[in-house]
């Protein structure tokens, strides 16, 4: 798996003056960026899985290489989805926090 380079420090949580709908975690250097990186990695592993399967079908690649690439793509997608779930959950927990 690609190492998740040091998770950036928490973006400063703005006081709840702003409406909740605009405070999506997309701040630069925040979780948003980490997530974008992961999604890019997922996309990349998906692409290499596609290439491997294509090569397998066209006969230039091996079956096991294609399967390995598929597994990698699946795992990296699963990891990203899990991280996303955690982030959303954390966000909701924070939002529900009584101030």
């Amino acid at each position: 798996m690609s190492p998740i380079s040091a998770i950036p420090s928490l973006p400063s949580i703005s006081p709840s003056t702003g409406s909740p709908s605009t405070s999506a975690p997309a701040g630069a250097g925040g979780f948003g960026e980490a997530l974008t990186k992961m999604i890019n990695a997922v996309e990349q592993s998906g692409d290499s899985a596609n290439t491997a399967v294509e090569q397998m079908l066209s006969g230039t690649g091996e079956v096991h290489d294609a399967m390995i690439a598929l597994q990698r793509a699946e795992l990296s997608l699963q990891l990203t989805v899990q991280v996303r779930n955690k982030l959303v959950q954390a966000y909701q927990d924070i939002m529900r926090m009584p101030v």
Partner: protein
Amino acid sequence: MSDINNDSAIMAALGRQMTQAVAKQAVAAGNLANLDTPNYRTREATFDDVLNGEMQKVKMTITDQHQIASSAQSTPKTAEVDGLESRRDGNNVQLDRELLTMTKAAADFAAAQQALSAKFRLIRFAINEGR
């Protein structure tokens, strides 16, 4: 994150072992196919590096997962095998030897596959928090 890199190296090595087993299997099948071809000489798949040496190399060069697929695709070469007795028709394919090679390759492949599957399972286990 040395642990993760180490993981990658092991997984790349397992992938390589599978590729090598496949190459050995194919070359042995080619030999068997020519069991009765006059003047056919037994061939053998050769690889530039033994697995352990390759592990070291992989450890140092792999920086992310996307390189693994390409590192596994070193094309094997084949060479004639020396020291096998030729029959009258100049053919030196030995049926038992080739079948043994194929069986061994199948076992190697199965072992690598099992190990790799186990690795994948471990990672999936971690991702899904044990579920």
